């Protein structure tokens, strides 16, 4: 009897293979968190252990030291074709955004620059519906225009495993293999598959990081969960939000939507 994780896993693998078949060249954003590591793991399952396209870190220079160390280790262990994409300074971002959102918007610009340089037709991203109500409105494949903008009112029809893999001239397609997963699904899968994750997720001195972003705008939350099993137990009962420690989400009601409309992940 196939279980829910199997169902999610197979749905994701199909979408990753579909992206590889239809979007050339293809690349993946590897933000080094639990979600993008899971996505990388699913990619290896899809292609018999290989990762047949480059993985990208949008590097603000502000990631945690532990995150950089994790990256250096797994680039080698998993033989990844790694691209380090430096992000433009905060001064280059939309001054109309609140300050923490501007820090996050650096990644939007870094991605835009990279796509312009390398001409990627498709980008795989590990976003999920349950982490953020605006992300919840996404599609499996989401076409973006040359500016990277998300036209949320004109999202394509998507059904029965048929996706819209065509973007406007100069645009690209965002692919979201983890959209249907929840935070709890991810941790149960990490446990089942023994997927390596960064040690910052595990509690130290009564605190842990539940969601990893740039060091300057991401804060740990109170927790004693020091193992994956304890994290799962915590999530089964918690009422606090996954991104509670992400300052960019909480400045203004419309901040996240504005970031995403302009091309944020």
């Amino acid at each position, binding site marked *: 009897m196939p279980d829910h994780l199997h*169902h999610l896993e197979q749905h994701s693998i199909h979408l990753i293979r579909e992206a590889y078949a239809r979007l050339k060249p293809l690349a993946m954003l590897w933000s080094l968190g639990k979600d993008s590591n899971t996505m990388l793991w699913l990619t290896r399952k899809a292609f018999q252990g290989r990762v047949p396209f480059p993985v990208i870190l949008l590097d603000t220079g502000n990631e945690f030291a532990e995150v950089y160390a994790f990256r250096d280790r797994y680039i080698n262990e998993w033989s990844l074709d790694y691209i380090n994409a430096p992000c433009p300074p905060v001064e280059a971002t939309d001054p109309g955004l609140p300050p923490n959102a501007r820090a996050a918007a650096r990644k939007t610009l870094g991605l835009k620059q990279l796509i312009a340089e390398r001409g990627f037709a498709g980008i795989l991203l590990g976003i999920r519906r349950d982490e953020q109500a605006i992300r*919840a409105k996404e599609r499996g494949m989401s076409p973006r225009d040359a500016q990277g903008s998300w036209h949320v009112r004109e999202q394509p029809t998507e059904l029965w495993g048929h996706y*819209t893999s065509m973007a406007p001239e100069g645009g690209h397609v965002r692919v979201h293999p983890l959209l249907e997963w929840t935070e709890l699904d991810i941790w149960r899968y990490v446990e089942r598959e023994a997927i390596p994750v960064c040690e910052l997720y595990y509690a130290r001195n009564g605190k842990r990081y539940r969601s990893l972003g740039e060091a300057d705008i991401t804060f740990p939350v109170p927790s004693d969960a020091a193992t994956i099993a304890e994290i799962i137990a915590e999530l089964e009962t918690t009422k606090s939000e996954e991104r509670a420690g992400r300052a960019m989400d909480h400045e203004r009601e419309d901040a996240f939507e504005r970031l995403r409309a302009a091309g944020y992940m």
Partner: protein
Amino acid sequence: MSLPLAVCLAGHVDHGKSSLLGRLLHELDLLPEGKVARLEAASASRGVPLEWSFALDALQLERDQAVTLDTTRVHVRAPRRDLIVIDCPGHRELVRNLVTGAAGTTAALLVVDGQLGAEAQTRAHAALLRLLGIRDFVVAVNKMDALDWNEARFAARRDEIAAALALLGVAVHAIVPTSAQDGGNIVVAPPAAAWWQGPTLVGALETLPEEPAVNADAPLRLPVQDVYRSGTRRVVAGRIAQGTLKPGAELMVLPSGERVHVATLEGWPQPPQSAAAGDNVALTFAEPVIVERGDLLCSPVAPARLTPVFDADVFWLGHEPLAVGGRLELRIGTRAVAVRVAAVVHALDVDRLAPAVARAIATNGLGRVTLRCDVPVALDDATECFETGRFVLADAGVVVGGGLVDASRYPDQRRALKPANRNVVAVDHHISAVERGARSGHVGAIVWLTGLSGAGKSTLAMALERALFDRGWNAYTIDGDNVRRGLNADLGFSPQDRQENIRRVGEVAALFADAGLVCITAFISPFDDDRARARATAGHRHFFEVYVKSELATCEARDPKGLYGKARRGEIKGFTGIDSPYEEPSAPDLVIDTQHADESACIAQLVSFVAERCGA
């Protein structure tokens, strides 16, 4: 951990779908910390009382206009069962987003405003959901607070909704009163509804049936998604739509009809021993057979059908109505081919939930059409295999519709693939066609008459035979009824047998033409593909397709053999023009209009056409 049940939330715009779901999350204490305070703030800033819908409707425009624009999914940890509730917009302009949310689920929660009842949009949604494969319904008669939780008014709505859904043939498991506003009967029935003996909304959702179990014994269907090359090895990738797969299994590749064996199943970290429906597989073949994306791997015992033409129940989202001649891309499994609408069979009238005569399917409408692809496509009837029997239609890369295949009225072209028998070698005659023509004064030829029963084929054929004979020519008519008494006495009138009937006639006509005769055939021969094959069988020989044209009503009035009467009374099934299609020839060599011209003029037209082309 069992599979959570996916339930699609649908109904007319403003009947309170998102509010009901937001309130349901609150009643089950599933909203995160601080969420209610944020919803209160977001509502207050817009000068409205607490809007539960804002828990789902996160977009600024959705909140400003208090309407769901796009679909989303929420996990609901109900006490007895995990649910995934898919919120869908109800607005008629946003049907594409409803389709996106609802497709792939088997159950729906239909929300109806108790004050307004099941309006046209509600019925249209229910019909669309049924087409998308949803069979299990729970209905919430919402806004009961505005009806003062009045039992009689609820009962009136319940009966009206039950009657409408009965027309669709779906299972309605519960019709429950609810109020998103006061939270009544979502988890607990309120005191005002002491009369209510039925389940709460959550209780009704928790007891919906499980999704039907996958039938592991069903014949294999595996659309080829991609082929990965590593060195000289080719690894075939795809997701199993139906059945199971093991190394050593024999497969049929469609459309080619080739047979292959599975050598290995590949995988990481370990290759699997076997794979089942829903699994993504990577496999290698034992034989050096090349396949590509779009091919369908099947069980050779029960393979898919192969046909360029089929009927389909469709939903249509395009800006312009879907009418005859419209060219689109058909995507089924991993195959994408050009397709055109050959006929509009009917449109669905949402007021009566019944078929209505129509020339087109309106935007956001449903109906039945005949589709013709440029090449034969491997597919199944949706009732046989839902995964390979459903398709989408795309226009310039944009999905504009979709539907379910019903190919039961058309022959399977796979059986027409000629078996290559390597032991048969053609023997040459010593008399050439030129020698035969020099003696008879005319060339051998095939005059292929096609048209509805009663159009005048036999009359014309026999008159042409007489006229040519009187000129001293060698001519002979093969007539449908005569052949079915002898050569084809073993064949009935199923699409398959009709195809074989025409195939044999095509072969015999080619032999007669070789013998130097003008061979006239008088068969309805309703299918384009069969006539095209007869022409292909004729090869280098003269072949003239003559469309004997008359309207159905006229043929039926003539009814020389009393067959239309029998067909109308249901005494004979699959009669062309009544309950089996006739495909008009797209490029006939000659059209004879027996509707308007009189008999002698028609005969004269045909005789002079043949005499000019076949005289030596």
